[in-house]
């Protein structure tokens, strides 16, 4: 059984896919930072940022629809910002009476809320593009390039390697439990057991998973030792960034800076 559905990477022959992963990582992070710094209400800039991200989606051949569907993941959190609609002072737009309270929707609140939602939605699309257009090993190389400690990156690398194996095991544990979760034909019985029991069973499953993972890690360590592992993870560094790469980086960062300045002026 394969859990490839977990891996968001979609191979395509697009310029975005071919781009150096270090560039992609820095440009994505820069983009998200820019989006975060744009003040609420600077709508023209938000539209420009959205245009940028949609264009990259098109160029990357990932499909705007696919990316947008995935971006819906971040939406539920928007509920946390809903109270803002009613608590920020400003011109009243609408009010509703709920019991003893009157909730007044203010223009400033709406602008703030919409800005948060826009930032969030635009940022998550950028992150999706990064993850969908870059194979994970390249992302690891990019992380090393931006000076994330090698040890941490090595841990990520092993985690990724065993993620699918362990998710597979988790799915099989779930299947095994489902297969033994039946309803008796005797009348008047309460199916499913108590909540505490179910929690304990789920815990037992997790414990089984962890224990096997722990013991597996010992075998992996042996295998690594057998191949000469001495605690140091050595990886071939990526080739130096060419002039084209530096140019793109410069252009990208400049665009962000310009957008930011414009938004502050607006």
């Amino acid at each position, binding site marked *: 059984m394969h859990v490839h559905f977990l891996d*968001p990477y979609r191979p395509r022959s697009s310029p975005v896919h071919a781009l150096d992963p270090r560039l992609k990582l820095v440009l994505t992070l820069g983009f998200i930072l820019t989006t975060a710094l744009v003040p609420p209400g600077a709508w023209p800039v938000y539209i420009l940022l959205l245009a940028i991200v949609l264009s990259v989606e098109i160029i990357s051949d990932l499909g705007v629809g696919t990316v947008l569907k995935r971006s819906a993941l971040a939406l539920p959190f928007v509920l946390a910002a809903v109270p803002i609609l009613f608590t920020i002072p400003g011109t009243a737009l609408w009010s509703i009476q709920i019991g003893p309270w009157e909730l007044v929707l203010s223009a400033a609140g709406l602008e703030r809320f919409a800005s948060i939602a826009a930032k969030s939605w635009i940022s998550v699309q950028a992150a999706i593009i990064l993850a969908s257009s870059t194979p994970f090993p390249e992302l690891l190389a990019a992380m090393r390039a931006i000076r994330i*400690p090698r040890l941490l990156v090595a841990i990520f690398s*092993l985690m990724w390697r065993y993620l699918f194996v362990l998710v597979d095991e988790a799915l099989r*544990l779930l299947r095994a439990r489902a297969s033994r979760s039946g309803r008796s034909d005797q009348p008047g019985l309460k199916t499913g057991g108590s909540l505490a029991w179910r929690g304990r*069973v*789920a*815990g037992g499953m*997790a414990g089984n998973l962890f224990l096997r993972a722990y013991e597996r*890690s010992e075998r992996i360590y042996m295998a690594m030792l057998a191949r000469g592992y001495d605690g140091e993870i050595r990886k071939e560094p990526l080739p130096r960034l060419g002039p084209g790469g530096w140019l793109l980086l410069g252009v990208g960062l400049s665009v962000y800076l310009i957008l930011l300045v414009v938004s502050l002026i607006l």
Partner: protein
Amino acid sequence: MHFSPAPMHIPDGFLSILVSVVMWILSIFAIGYSLKRVSQDIGERQVPLMGVLAAAIFAGQMLNFAVAGGTSGHLMGAAIATILLGPWAAVLVMTSVVSIQALIFQDGGLLALGANIFNMAIVGVAVSYVTYQLVYRLSGKRPWGIFAGGFLAAWLSIVITALGVGLQLALSGTSPANIAIPAMAAIHAIIGIGEGLITTGVLAFVYATRPDLITRQEAPPSKAGVVWVVGLLLAVALAILSPLASSRPDGLEWVAEQKGFLDTAQGTVYNIIPDYVLPGVSNEAIATVLAGILGIILVLGVAMGIGYLRRHRQQASDQ
């Protein structure tokens, strides 16, 4: 792919730059220190062990159980990682889980990752560690202490992490404090029970099969002092924060006070949200409840501190 149990992974766009940066700085320091400690403790073994266990926690978050009417409980994992691996390794493991969730699955933002790591991998682990060690020692290192400690550590790790999220949202101006903080606390006080149940289930399994994995992680007596201090500091910090939840004026009230719009008889456009968040429950009540919980933690902390001192004096006099 969403296996996260609760709204804890903050996406990008919700936190102010200031909050994001501060959280990043704190997280980087904590991760750096944890890397150093883990290197010292288990050296080269760490990469396979941390990596695989991070994968196990990620996969373990899929192991749900039916709660009620279609909802289900899941594992976050900070508590169990802490109890089985010790705090420093747990920080690295949870950091890996949260980072990969953000980077690959967009479960949490990239800029907000600093805050998410701080909440789940650092605060979650710290709270679990202190709580578990406290309860375990209070039980005289008896088996029931493992399970009670595990349950409480798991529950508190969820609640306090949630409080952290609420606080960060409030400080960023994304959510008013007197709604965000109590709401997060209330919801997660319930969700935390699920975490507690699963955690005890894991401990039961591991205790039956490899009890050595649990008892290995006892804090050596020399470090116990640190545990008390951190625990008490946490309790004090929370005590300071809880009035913040109840009396921090939301923007509307503040402006209303400033402009003298408190007179509702004027039929003003501004309708102040009254000082309560839930029907019939005043912010004072919530603060009281919070204070009560903190009081218990403080008392526990003092009791254990006294117990420790007594034992220490006993040992000294025995020599």
